[in-house]
């Protein structure tokens, strides 16, 4: 009797551990590739200057100028890697950048092996709140200007209502641009072909991000422009996901008829895109990036952001559907 009880207890403990491990999703680490091979490469980084104007009713207008062109050169000797003190960079990034940034971290490990990138991918709204609540973070890459503005003291006070000051002056710039698309599950069971179709009876259930999720805000804008948002709400045809990856999963699992997500997410998940939103429907989807002034490794952070603007990274971004914001 005792033996059976003990075995059951052990099994239960094992189950709980497995559950805990499965449940812990946040905090992804970039995989380490063998740095001991003595790879040599030369990285030259150039400064970038970006001026952006965003249009659209729901977007606030900001003019950004990055000052202080930075140039840094890292040269490595043949067969001898310069040993630097190991540094951890914590990067909070929008969920839609998961695949691309993960790949880039692996690439960065080869040129700067002493820098370890630790990611947290989630909806920009959640990340902004976490930063605000005191989370340790070096770099923030948001899926919309709104969340970055809410942390930037130099932004419009009507957006940064709490007067938060987390953005390191001069480090903010626009990284990539995405498109907001309508995606359907395999075989398109509901036969949705366009945004307009959402106003018809063809649609039973659509998944959107909630309005604290950037893609959710865009979705609501699109539907408002089309004049069908209120009708969908009244008919209870909208189900909300907590971030864009959740919306993507719902579509992929065919739990819903369709969903509004980013082009990059549709690509990564292999989903069919049936319609794309135009600029006049929801404005441009710009992803700003910045170093946070609470960062303890500002130089390494700037170096990483500079790396993101290189052609190598550009290729990675474009391969999943981003376009480079210049």
């Amino acid at each position, binding site marked *: 009797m005792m033996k*059976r009880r003990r075995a059951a207890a052990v099994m239960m403990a094992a189950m709980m551990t*497995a*559950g805990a491990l499965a*449940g812990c999703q946040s905090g992804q680490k970039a995989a380490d590739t063998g740095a001991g091979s003595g790879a040599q490469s030369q990285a030259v980084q150039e400064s970038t200057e970006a001026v952006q104007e965003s249009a659209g009713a729901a977007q606030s207008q900001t003019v950004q100028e990055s000052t202080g062109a930075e140039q840094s050169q890292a040269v490595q000797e043949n067969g001898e890697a310069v040993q630097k003190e190991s540094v951890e960079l914590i990067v909070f990034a929008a969920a839609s950048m998961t695949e691309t940034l993960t790949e880039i971290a692996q690439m960065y490990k080869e040129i700067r092996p002493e820098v370890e990138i630790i990611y947290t991918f989630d909806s920009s709204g959640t990340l902004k709140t976490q930063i605000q609540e005191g989370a340790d973070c070096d770099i923030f890459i948001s899926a919309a200007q709104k969340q970055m503005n809410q942390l930037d003291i130099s932004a419009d006070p009507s957006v940064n209502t709490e007067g938060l000051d987390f953005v390191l002056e001069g480090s903010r710039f626009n990284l990539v641009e995405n498109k907001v698309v309508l995606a359907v*599950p395999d075989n398109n069971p509901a036969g949705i072909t366009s945004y307009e179709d959402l106003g018809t009876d063809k649609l039973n*259930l659509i998944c959107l991000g909630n*309005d604290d999720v950037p893609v959710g805000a865009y979705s609501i804008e699109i539907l408002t422009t089309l004049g069908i948002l209120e009708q969908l709400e009244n008919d*209870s045809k909208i*189900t*909300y996901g907590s971030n864009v990856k959740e919306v993507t999963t719902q579509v992929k699992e065919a739990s819903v008829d369709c969903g509004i997500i980013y082009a990059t997410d549709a690509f990564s998940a292999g989903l069919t895109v049936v319609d794309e939103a135009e600029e006049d429907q929801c404005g441009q989807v710009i992803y700003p990036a910045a170093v946070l002034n609470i960062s303890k490794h500002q130089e390494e952070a700037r170096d990483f952001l500079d790396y993101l603007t290189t052609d190598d990274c550009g290729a990675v971004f474009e391969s999943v559907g981003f376009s480079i914001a210049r």
Partner: protein
Amino acid sequence: MDWYPLYNSLRIALISSVIVFFTGIFAAYYIARLNRVVKGILDVILTLPMVLPPTVVGYFLLLLLGAKRPVGMWFQEQFGIKLVMTWYSGIFAAAVVAFPLMYRTARGAFESFDETLAYSGQTLGLSNTYIFWRIRMPACRQGILAGAVLSFARALGEYGATSMLAGYTPGRTATISTTVYQLWRTDNEALAFQWVVVNVMISAVVLLTVNMLEEKNRKERR
């Protein structure tokens, strides 16, 4: 205020509780009679949903009932019914996590039942069904009642598995717990707090009812 989440939560909790009441009691009754090995294994399996994190339970359920998964697809083909993203998906989630509570409480109650009462009934010619409902259950009613209340409370407060199976569709699948979460996310604190108050009031009513019933029970026994 849109009262749908209240209506939906109560509906799901009540239906789940009824399902779990009968399945839990019958499982407890029949499994107690099996041999030790089988009984031990079944015990672990049936108690798992209580120990696993609700999201893990939700994940398993999705693997079964999702629209592209075996059971989900079969239902879609045979009856045209979707098992996820509907209001009744919440019932699957709530019933699975609440079941172990009813099962274990009922097991405990049955095991402390004086079996000679059942034997006595049998030798007097009473049918086993009569003995179960009129002698065993009344004798165990304290434990059974406690189990029923616990499982109702658990079903009412279910969040993790429910949000994965039913999603959050206002007016359709929203429950009090998923509504509060989404209201908080979208900075709707005032409304979120109103729901918190509603939930506390319901829980208080449930607990008061339970206490009253236990008092009545205690008086009757003396």
